[in-house]
């Protein structure tokens, strides 16, 4: 079947099997390798991308791209790690925060983790005041084997503070 999916502002049209998972559409057809995968059972959150859902009052929210058929993603705007930075290459604050706070080691979970972190900031009424528990709970669907999470929490806080100070730095798929 022909599937048309908008990823990072570009529409990809491909003739695919109906069973094709979104993560494989992103990696094999759109050839965006920044979205990784880590399990078979929808537990690890490695494959998370942001999805802008017109039916939702939420800002673009994280979904596990291994747990959606590509066909299901038609009509939504998908943002992967490759689409996080501004078009001129300026990094999104969450990317800066992960670098500043040493919130990545092997880098494999990083795209999914940054996506969830970005959403946590975007949806929180007062992101600089997020509690440790709110952040820990928020990323509890994203497994990381390297960092021990402490620096990821610091990175999300760093990004929240940066966005507060530099509102123009924040860019979401919806804008």
């Amino acid at each position, binding site marked *: 079947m022909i599937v048309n999916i908008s990823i990072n502002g570009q529409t990809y049209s491909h003739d695919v099997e109906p069973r094709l998972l979104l993560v494989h559409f992103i990696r094999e057809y759109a050839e965006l390798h920044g979205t990784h995968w880590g399990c078979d059972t929808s537990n690890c959150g490695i494959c998370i991308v942001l999805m802008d859902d017109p039916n939702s009052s939420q800002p673009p929210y994280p979904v596990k791209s291994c747990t959606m058929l590509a066909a299901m993603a038609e009509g939504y705007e998908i943002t992967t790690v490759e689409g996080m930075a501004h078009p001129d290459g300026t990094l999104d604050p969450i990317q800066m925060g992960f670098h500043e706070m040493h919130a990545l080691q092997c880098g494999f979970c990083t795209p999914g983790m940054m996506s969830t972190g970005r959403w946590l900031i975007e949806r929180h009424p007062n992101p600089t005041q997020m509690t440790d528990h709110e952040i820990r709970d928020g990323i509890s669907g994203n497994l990381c084997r*390297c960092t021990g999470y*402490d620096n990821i929490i610091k990175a999300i806080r760093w990004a929240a503070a940066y966005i507060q100070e530099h509102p123009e730095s924040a860019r979401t798929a919806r804008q």
Partner: protein
Amino acid sequence: MATTETTPGRHPDWYGHATGDTFGKIADAPIGFGHMKRKEDARFIRGLGDYMDDVRLPGMVHGAILRSPYAHARINSIDTSGALAHPKVAAVVIAKDLETLGLAWMPTISYDTQAVLAGDKVRFHLQEVAFVIALDAYSAQDALQLIEVDYDVLPAIVNCRKALDPDAPLIRDDKVGQTDNLASPMWEAGDKAICDRVFAEADVVAKQTILDPRSHPCPMETCGMVADMNPNTGQLNIYNGNQAPHAHRTVYAQVAGLPEQNIRILCNDIGGGFGNKVPVYPGYVCAIAGSIVAGAPVKWIEDRSENLASTGFARDYLMYSEMCSKGGKITGLRVDAIADHGAFDSTAQATKFPAGFFHIVTGSYDLSGAHCQVKAVYTNKAPGGVAYRCSFRITEAVYLVERMVDQLAMEMRVDPVELRMRSFIRADQFPYETATGWVYDSGDYHKAMKLAMEIAGYDELRAEQQEKLQRGEMMGIGVAFFTEGVGAGPRRHMDILGLAMNDGAELRVHPSGKAVVSISAQTQGQGHETTFAQIVAEELGISPNEIMVRHGDTDKTPYGLGTYGSRSTPVSGGAVAVVSRKVRDKARQFAALMLETRAEDLQWEKGRWFVRGDPERGSTIESIAEYAYSATNLPEGLEGGLDANAVYDPPNLTYPFGAYIAVVDVDPGTGKVHMRRFIAVDDCGVRINPMVVEGQIHGGLVEGIGQALMEIISFDEQGNCMNASFMDYLLPTALECPINGFELGETVTPCPHHPIGAKGVGESPCVGSPPAIANAVVDALYHAKGIKHMDIPAFPARVWAAMNGRAEPPQ
């Protein structure tokens, strides 16, 4: 067919990202050691890492493995016709096809043999049986369901004690002369007679059987390979994220009988290793065989179930132990252990150390006598025995000794910290030879322990525990003090498959004064591209921003044994320091010419040679580099260019240590353990980059929480692996960690024999934290209910059983 240069050519691109834009150059980079953000982040935060599954070659086909549904069964027949009829299937490989290629069995890194694909019988649940090659990955999986295998099911053994029963079914009937399930001769260390005497004179003896259960390193990226055999040139390019690319190349040359110079291993980015990516796995050999058969590059990427069920597990040590004291101090330890190797002995060890560095079981204590012995058995479980973030069985040994110290303290009715303080090796005793014959390099254990107690507020915690007991609440405080031996190792003692455990480094300083250092270590997230540049920076005074660290391509890096056992900094880091000093010495010759003086009259300060007594007269490393390539009047014996090679042979292991304190609350109604606080004081000698060191510690601590509380690979009575997915193999999330973060402290006792005084740190937190947490859980049970031991992992149900006096080892 791919050419050799296209894909490897991606390496420079990475560094293009790292150096060509906002983040590539780290603005406040120190010239040398100190806090520095990572250079490699630039590509990862943009999604530009290049992992195993990202490799794509023209004409590439996809492999998938059919696995056994039984733990032990004879194979009567395999019918592949259904799969071969699938329109997208290119080939199906089974054992007898491999026999014609001489690839049916492969050597393990412990001199055993392992079936690549099972031909005679399957020996563990989910063992490899057939390899399908199809045009796409989905079709390869579809075709697995079209293969028919006829099995005769045999009784399976998954209990290491039962494997030793005289009437136990023989698992390795393929091995000539094998009549029982013993995997190797009994190994022992320490003087038994002295140890027996120490026990005979003891005041108090504690005894306990302790299981360090089977767990899995489980990096977030699974294992995989793209094998690309060029039939026209005989060149085999192997894209494979592994921790020891040079050793792998040698192994493939042996296994496949290919000329070693025609094999090139390309490790791009690796999504975590933790020991899992040390061995050679059957899937790799299948991919290589598949590429030979199919005449095309073959990609095989294992799924998570395959990763958990078939690749290198860790631990699985059942240990009976006794520890004794005299005069209020620990004096002796004896251990009798069974190592469960699974169906094939592919444990990762230095050759002369069949039980790894289990000798370190004497821990951080000044013992009068110690003896340990280990026998290894075959069972119908997956092979492996890799060191999950651990230097060759040190985790098992440290877990045992630290659990035993707590048990002994309970028997002696003394505080567990007090007993440790009385029994530690004193700072003035280093270098210290242990009762099992190891020479610890340096340490100040009392200082580290005191610092940890101070951060924790140990006395206040004990008071709080008493108050809570009055209210019927259960709280535990667990202490562990570890000493690790890492950085294997001295070539006179240590090799793997005959390859000395050394590492090489090559340093080229270009005419512009920028440098490339090539290393044999292989990062899996440790940050080598930053920290190794910092070592060169410290030695030569060149900014780390201007030093590229090259690794992961066996054609372009010097030989060495790779990254595991916390050996990167102790061995490869030593090589980088040594090669930098060689370059510095060579630079001195050029500087003498430039400054028209004698080399011996020059003095070094970071970044330049100057004339002793006349500091204005000097040459910077940049100007020397330019001169080295352009000077026209070099004297005889001095070659142009500024580069050098080194192979570092460490004179001894390094011995990092640390004091850890865990605080837990246990729900008396449900047995649920809540990890409240964790204090970690680490002494890893000189820290190259404190930020990276702390990141390593955080990560290792969470893996320790996992092992202590939730990670286990277990089997049912039929031998089925019960934890072959993330539904049941549980990695800690952010919610299982102390809510306000880890509390770290440091002491610095430099390693006296290492060129930069560093000891290595990667594994320390994962070695020290399981016993600290286990001790905390038991401490809660002990104070509330008088219970002195339970085996990990401390699942709620198991804690509740222990609380009620029904502690059992996990199945």
